[in-house]
């Protein structure tokens, strides 16, 4: 009797080990690049220039870094070495005022801000001058319920991650509705459905990448709007984890000049990099407060020369990384 139980247990162990090996081989890819090295960091808690109270978004031009400083209701601008240059925005809902600015996107000489509490996308000049705003509170087409991120197409169309709206909306530059992905206000885990989407990115050819926040995955749609693929853990179905190619809450997605995909992996305290087709390339970051460590990675931006800037949320600082030689 005892022998039989031992035999059965042995069999179960072998099966479990076999499954673990399969999971490892199929869903835990190895790095294909040498990765990134830490360069420098700047910022500390506070409300003075160069200090942060919840940095939540980041975007770069060829020479400057723009940071959403959410609880200070402002955008701060730095050079690539972290020297403070200027700031704009104050708390409120009028033109140029901000209510928890989140992910940022730069297109041409304009900065697009997901103005989370004000349910709109605000557009500023790079000097901080308010240009216009798009959208208002609501559930109808062209309205928002806490926009988390925005991307801008070559023709000026906006793609907006509507966080509580559980959808991605495409709007013309004047705010008129074009189409949407996802069911308004309804969470879903199947392809084309969302679970609190936080951000979007557009490739040069119009391919749309979505940071599907609490589904712990990335979803990709063709320029025509068809679902193409998803990734993030087994089957890309809301299975989170700390392994390569897995996520634990996705809060930002952005592309480099080659179309590679960078993802802020919030609870895993790291940035992950993928090829345009979702092949895992490399990752960097670990939990902590030391140089090169993170307390929740919330946003990432990539400069044209490949330098990567990361918003280190709970450490209230920005980190600069570069590709290893």
């Amino acid at each position, binding site marked *: 009797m005892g022998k039989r139980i031992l035999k059965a247990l042995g069999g179960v162990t072998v099966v479990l080990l076999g499954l673990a090996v399969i999971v490892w081989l199929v869903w835990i890819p190895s790095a294909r690049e040498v990765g990134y090295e830490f360069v420098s960091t700047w910022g500390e808690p506070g409300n003075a220039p160069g200090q942060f109270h919840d940095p939540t978004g980041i975007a770069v031009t060829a020479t400057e870094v723009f940071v959403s400083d959410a609880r200070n209701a402002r955008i701060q601008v730095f050079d690539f070495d972290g020297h403070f240059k200027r700031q704009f925005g104050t708390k409120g809902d009028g033109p140029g005022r901000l209510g928890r600015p989140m992910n940022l996107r730069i297109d041409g000489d304009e900065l697009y801000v997901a103005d989370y509490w004000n349910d709109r996308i605000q557009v500023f000049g790079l000097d901080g001058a308010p240009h216009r705003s798009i959208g208002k509170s609501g559930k109808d087409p062209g309205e928002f319920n*806490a926009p988390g991120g925005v991307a801008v197409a070559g023709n000026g169309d906006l793609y907006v991650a509507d966080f509580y709206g559980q959808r991605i909306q495409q709007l013309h530059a004047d705010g008129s509705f074009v189409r949407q992905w996802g069911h308004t206000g309804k969470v879903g885990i199947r392809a084309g459905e969302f679970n609190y989407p936080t951000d979007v990115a557009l490739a040069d050819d119009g391919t749309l990448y979505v940071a599907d926040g609490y589904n712990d995955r990335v979803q990709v749609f063709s320029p025509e709007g068809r679902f193409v693929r998803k990734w993030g853990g087994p089957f890309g179905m809301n299975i989170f984890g700390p392994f390569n190619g897995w996520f634990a809450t996705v809060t930002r997605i952005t592309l480099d000049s080659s179309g590679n995909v960078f993802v802020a992996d*919030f*609870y895993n305290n790291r940035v992950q990099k993928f090829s345009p087709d979702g092949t895992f390339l490399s990752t960097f970051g670990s939990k902590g407060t030391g140089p090169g460590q993170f307390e929740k990675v919330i946003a990432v931006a990539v400069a044209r020369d490949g330098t990567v800037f990361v918003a280190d949320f709970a450490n209230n600082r920005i980190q600069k990384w570069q590709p290893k030689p």
Partner: protein
Amino acid sequence: MKIIRHSIAALMLLLLIPTAQASGPSYALQVDGLACPFCAYGIEKKLSSIEGVDDTQVNIKTGEVIVIMAEGAPLAEDLARKKVKDAGFTLRAFSRRSK
């Protein structure tokens, strides 16, 4: 010298008292499922829409939300529960904090 310093400190305390008295009751809400700043700001936004709310403070790590009301404006538990639900979360505990 010591007396002058004590007098200044006492004067500063007196100046602070009216400010402290101006704020109303505060409440501690325990919320399940707070995952990131997107949620925290969502809850803050919903709770701030209640008339009489002066300030909200969210601790993502502990899931505790502190709601500070204006003087003479109590917060009804049912309303707080509805707002938390609207933000996509579940209210687990609600209590008035002692001053």
